[in-house]
C-alpha cells in the first residue's frame, strides 16, 4: 500500500533530510514516533504529495508520486489522501457541514450533503452541522477535521500530532474517532506524533531516530 524507500528531501535552506524507510499495508494503522526534526511531518507531506523527494521512492497504492504531474498530484491528494493537521486548518467562517462539502467540491466530486451530514452524525456532531466552525470547541472542531479527512473515501489517512494538545481523556477519545473513521472507509492510517500515550492503539509502531 505505502512504500517509502531511500528517500532524501532537500529544503530551501540547503539542508537535506534522510527519511527512514516506511511500509504500510491497507487497513493497517501505523504510529511514527520521534522528536522534532526527525522527519515525521516531512513524511506526511511526502505521502500527501505536497512535496517531492530529491531521491528514492514514495509510492502509494502502487503509484510512484514522482511520476505524477503537479495537477495529477493535486487530484491524487484530493481523492486518495485524507489529512488531519495539528492546527486543523478548517475554514472558520464556514459551518461544519460546509467544511465537509467544500472538501468534496475541491476534490472535484459532486456535493453530497446527505453523506456529509451522516459523517458528522457518525462523529457525534449532528446538532452542530450548521454552526460555524469558529464557534465550535477544539474537540468539536477536531471531529469536523476528521469528517473532512474521510469524506472523499481516501485510501490513506495521515494525521500530524492529532493529540499533542489534548488531555488524556480527550486524546483517547480523539484517537478512537480517528481509528474508527479510518476503519469506516477502509483506509490505512498513519499518525506522526511525539505523544507516546497513544502508542497502544496502533497495529504497528515505528520510531524515527
Amino acid at each position, binding site marked *: 500500500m505505502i512504500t517509502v524507500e531511500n528517500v532524501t528531501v532537500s529544503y530551501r535552506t540547503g539542508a537535506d533530510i534522510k527519511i527512514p524507510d516506511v511500509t504500510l499495508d491497507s487497513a493497517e494503522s501505523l504510529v511514527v514516533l520521534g522528536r522534532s526534526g526527525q522527519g515525521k511531518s516531512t513524511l506526511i507531506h511526502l505521502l500527501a504529495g*505536497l512535496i517531492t523527494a530529491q531521491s528514492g521512492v514514495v509510492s502509494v497504492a502502487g503509484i510512484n508520486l514522482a511520476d505524477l504531474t503537479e495537477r495529477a498530484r493535486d487530484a491524487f491528494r*484530493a481523492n486518495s489522501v485524507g489529512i488531519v493537521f495539528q492546527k486543523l*486548518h*478548517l*475554514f472558520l*467562517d*464556514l459551518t461544519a457541514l*460546509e467544511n465537509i462539502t467544500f472538501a468534496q467540491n*475541491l476534490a472535484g466530486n459532486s456535493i453530497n450533503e446527505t453523506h456529509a451530514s451522516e459523517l458528522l452524525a457518525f462523529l457525534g456532531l449532528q446538532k452542530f452541522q450548521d454552526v460555524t466552525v469558529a464557534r465550535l470547541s477544539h474537540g468539536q472542531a477536531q471531529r469536523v477535521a476528521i469528517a473532512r479527512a474521510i469524506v472523499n473515501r481516501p485510501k490513506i489517512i495521515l494525521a500530524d500530532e492529532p493529540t499533542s494538545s489534548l488531555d488524556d481523556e480527550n486524546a483517547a477519545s480523539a484517537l478512537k474517532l480517528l481509528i474508527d473513521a479510518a476503519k469506516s472507509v477502509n483506509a490505512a492510517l498513519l499518525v506522526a506524533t511525539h505523544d507516546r500515550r497513544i502508542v497502544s492503539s496502533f497495529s504497528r509502531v515505528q520510531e524515527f531516530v
Partner: protein
Amino acid sequence: MNPLGFLVRTLKTDLNKWIVNLSLLAFGVAGVVCLRSLESQVASNVLSDARNIDMVAGARGSALQIIMSAVFQLDVPTGNITQQVLSDLKTNRGVKLAVPVSMGDSFSGFRVIGTTPDYLELFPAEFAGKDSQIFKSAFDAVLGAEVAASSKLRIGDTFVGSHGLGNGGEQHAQFPYKVVGILAATGGVVDRVILTPLESVWAVHEAQHHHAENESDDEAGGPHTSHHHHDEKDHDHDTIHANDRKITAVLIKFSSPLSAAIIPRMVNDRPDGVTAAVPAVELTRLTALFRGVAGLISGGAFLLIALSMLGFILGLYRALRERKRELASMRALGASRAALFSIVFGEGTLLSFSGAVLGVFLGHFLLWIVQLKFSLLGTRIDAWQFTMDDVLVAGAALTLGILISSLPAFSAGRINVIEALNEK
C-alpha cells in the same frame, strides 16, 4: 459549498475592510458618469435648441448674452432694437427666415415672448390636442408644455402677466391673455415659454409707459396740468408708437452658407447699435468652457478611481496575507493552483464589478440631484437615462480592477503550502 460560495462568504465577512475601497471606486465612477452624462445631455439639448438659428441680431452688447436671452430665455436682453433692423433683414436675399422676439413680461416665472408664428419654424413643436392653434390676435397665448403642466391652464383659460422677466413684478391686470394653444413637450426651450403676437407685448408696455408718464405729470403738476398739454403729448406718443415700436432681437436663418460670412459683418456695421451674435461660435466657446471645467472635475474623479485601484491591490494583498493559511488548506485538500488564482481573482473582479455598477447608479443619482438644484442652460436633464457611455466607464473601471486583481491572484497560485500551513 463551492469556491464561489466561499468567495461570497469571505467577502461578506470582510465587507467592513472593503467598504472604503468600494466607496472610492463607486464615487470615482459616479463622478465620471455624472459629468459625461451631463456634458452630453446639455450639449445635445443646447445644440438642438439652437440648430435652426444661424444668427441673432440684438442691441449692442455681449453676443453670448444676446443668445442666452433671445434663444435660451435665460439671461436678460442687452436692450431693444428698432423694427427697421427686422425689415432690413427680412428683405435681405441671404436671409431665409427672420423672426422677431420681444420680451419684458412673465407669468409664474415663465417668459412671455411677443413674436410671429414663424417662431415655431425655428423651435419646432407639435400642438398638444386638436383644439390647440397658433395665436391670431393680440393677447392670444400659446403655452409651452412645461408652462401648461405647471400652471394647469387649459385652452380658453385666461391669465395675467406680470412686469419683468422674473417673479414678483407688477401685474398687468387690465391685459389678460387667453390660452389658444398648448404645445407638446420637446425637451427644449420652447417648453418653458408663452408665445403671443408682438402686438400684445407692445400694448402692455405702451400702456405701462403711458401710466408712468401720467403719474410723473401728476406729481409735477397734478390736476392743474392742462388738457391741451396732455393731448399734445398723446399725439406725440402715437406718432412714436406707430413708427418706432421696438423689439428685443431678431432670430435669423440664412438661405445659404455664404450668408454667414456676409450678414453678421453687415449687421455689426450698422450705425444704430446692433450686434450680430452667431450661436455656432458662441456655443462652441461655451461648451469648450464647460468641457474644461468638466474635464477638471473628471480628472478628480479619475484620481479617485486610481486611488481606489491602489486600495484594491493593497486590500487584495492584505486579504491574501490574512487568508494564506486557508488558501494553503485548500491546496492540501486538492485544489489546484488555478483554483486559488480563480478565488483571489474572482474576489477582485467581484469587488470591481460591484464598485463600478454602484458607481453608475450613484452617478445618475448625483445627476438627479444636480438637475433638481441647478438650471443648466434651461435644458431638461433626464437623470435616469442610461447610455453606452455608462457601460464604457464601468467597463474601464472593471478592466482596471481585473488587471490589478491578477497580480495578487498569481501570488495566491504560487503559495508555498507547507510554509503557509506552518505559519504561526
